[in-house]
């Protein structure tokens, strides 16, 4: 009970901090907040102040997820009429979904994918094309975004299955560069100018109308946040259930030791296909929602550099760690948007940060916990 209270208190603190950061406008205040955040992080690591919190959250996953969910809802409602802050929050949620998909490939099965932003883009372009031409319900369009991304991935499956490690990396890098160039020169998809999307609709709900229900008034982004939050919850559930099952054991073994895996009857190709396809599907759905929310997509959003940002998020957060990548997404997305001075330098900054992480703390910010299929929670 006491540990739960500690965890709740911690969450409240983090929520308040995130709220302050999101609504702050003066660059000075933002810089101060960021410094406070870094200092608090270092302090927490040095003094191991977070031990009880980590233990409490780690031992009761449901509770932790509930807290996180509540925290996002509270922040969204507190910022209900701040369009820009809500846009950022939605973007964080959507990128979390995409990175959860990437995590299945990269973190679990060890299938490298440096074209994350490309599959995100496949989802986005699918949404743009379907929303303008077909009379498909928009929820189905989101699904279709995932399906097309998964299908696009099958193009790469043969070369990826036939190669390992570095070679597979080369293939996905080549695909990322190809995809971006293709979008730019293909007039049917709008060329470098890209495509526009109408607002998202679910039944009678028109997403871009401002919200007013009695005394409550809020930005239209709240609807997108709601959808994004549902997607995060679903993706979290899928990814964690996969991890904590026989599938998770098989994927880890395929990543860690293909020879041992094959010697005990594991079909390497099957698991790589499964991880790559499931991952791309999740990334594609996220990409479709992102396109709806922004209302406009262009090749620039889906460059190789953006793919590297996705990979950076995984590595900074801790490869394979769902909570770690969530935290890292918040940092990587919010920091440059709020602290404008570093916006231009973000690729440089995060790439350098990843190099340092790999050299000095390869497990990342929140290391992936040990899988415990049976038994009492970690003591």
């Amino acid at each position, binding site marked *: 009970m006491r540990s739960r209270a500690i965890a709740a208190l911690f969450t409240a603190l983090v929520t308040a901090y995130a709220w302050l950061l999101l609504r702050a406008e003066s660059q000075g205040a933002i810089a101060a907040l960021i410094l406070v955040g870094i200092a608090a992080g270092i302090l927490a690591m040095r003094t191991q102040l977070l031990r009880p919190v980590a233990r409490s959250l780690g031992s009761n996953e449901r509770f932790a997820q509930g807290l996180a969910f509540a925290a996002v809802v509270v922040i969204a409602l507190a910022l209900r009429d701040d369009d820009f802050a809500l846009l950022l929050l939605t973007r964080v949620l959507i990128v979390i979904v995409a990175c959860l998909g990437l995590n299945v490939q990269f973190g679990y099965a060890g299938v490298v994918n440096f074209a994350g932003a490309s599959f995100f883009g496949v989802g986005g372009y699918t949404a743009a094309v379907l929303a303008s031409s077909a009379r498909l319900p928009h929820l189905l369009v989101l699904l279709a975004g995932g399906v097309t991304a998964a299908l696009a991935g099958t193009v*790469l499956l043969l070369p990826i299955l036939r190669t390992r490690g570095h070679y597979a990396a080369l293939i996905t890098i*080549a695909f990322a560069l190809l995809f971006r160039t293709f979008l730019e020169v293909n007039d049917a998809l709008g060329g470098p100018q890209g495509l526009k999307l109408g607002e998202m609709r679910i039944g009678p709900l028109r997403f871009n109308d401002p919200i007013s229900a009695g005394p409550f008034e809020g930005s239209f982004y709240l609807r997108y946040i709601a959808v994004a939050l549902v997607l995060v919850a679903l993706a979290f559930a899928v990814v964690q259930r996969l991890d904590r099952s026989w599938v998770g054991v098989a994927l880890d073994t395929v990543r860690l030791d293909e*020879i041992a895996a094959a010697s005990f009857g594991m079909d390497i190709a099957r698991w790589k296909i499964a991880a790559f396809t499931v991952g791309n599907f999740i990334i594609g759905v996220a990409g479709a929602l992102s396109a709806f929310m922004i209302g406009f997509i262009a090749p620039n959003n889906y460059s190789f550099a953006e793919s590297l940002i996705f990979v950076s998020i995984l590595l900074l957060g801790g490869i394979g760690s769902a909570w770690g990548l969530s935290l890292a997404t918040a940092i990587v997305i919010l920091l440059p948007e709020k602290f404008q001075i570093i916006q231009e330098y973000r690729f440089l900054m995060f*790439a350098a940060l990843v190099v340092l992480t790999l050299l000095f703390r*390869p497990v990342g910010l929140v290391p992936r916990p040990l899988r415990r299929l049976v038994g009492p929670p970690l003591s």
Partner: protein
Amino acid sequence: MSASVIAQYVMNGAMLGMMYALVAVGFTLFFGVLDIIQFSHGDVVAAGAFAGLAAWTLLTAAGVAAPAVLLLAVVLSAIAVTALLGAVVARFIVLPVKGAPQLNVLLVTLMAGTVLRECLRLFYPGGSQPKLFPALLPTSGWDIGGFHLRFDNVILLVSGALLIAGTHLIITRSRLGLAIRAVAQDEETARTMGIDFRRVVLVTFALGSALAAFAGVIDGLYYNEVFFGMGLLLGVIGFAAAILGGLGNLYGAIVGGFLFAALQTIGAVALPFASAYKDVFAFGVVILLMAIRPTGLIGERASERV
């Protein structure tokens, strides 16, 4: 198609092939000594081209106009910068993660390449836009039946070939080459033979990167333009060429480079795409080749069947 047009395509392909081969040789050298892929290699190439450009800009600003002096300065500064960068990458990025999972080595070099690329974009004056690269070689030439064979192209091709031959001599004839080959064969044995492993690695990285500097300069001189992202394309294709020729195989890398250029050139002529799709085609070929011959054209190491 007239003979002169064909000759033009051949010239184009030879030039591309020379650049790819020079980059691929670097990949193959690094793989030889350390069994790793230096994913930032392409960006080191770009840095070399920009270093050359910087030398030219500084010297012309100082009033130097003699083309020979300028050319020498461009080449030397490009080589110096890339050799240094290569050694720095080896010393501070690659060697510290030696023994970590392969994936980490891949990621750390890839991200180091991104750092380099972004530094060019952000900190080189006007680096976010393509930069004009000066024509330092005589552009006149011979007319052979309607085809204009330019001196500068001939000079670039010949000097590229000489460089590759020189590298070959270093590897096969010199004491340094012997040490490199010993390390490539077996690190432990090389150590017990008294070879300074670290030094050999650093020197190999410096050597491979210096070769790539030349690829960068050729690129600049041939297209009269350099771009901060140029290393990405050269790196991906150079790596693909090295794989095509069998990683670790010096001749293979050269053959792979020219083969890739040939494919690209033939593709540009034979396929009904607009030229806008030429990069799409090049990357498509990379993916396709990996699917067909994942271990390269020359030789296949025995590996476990899983």
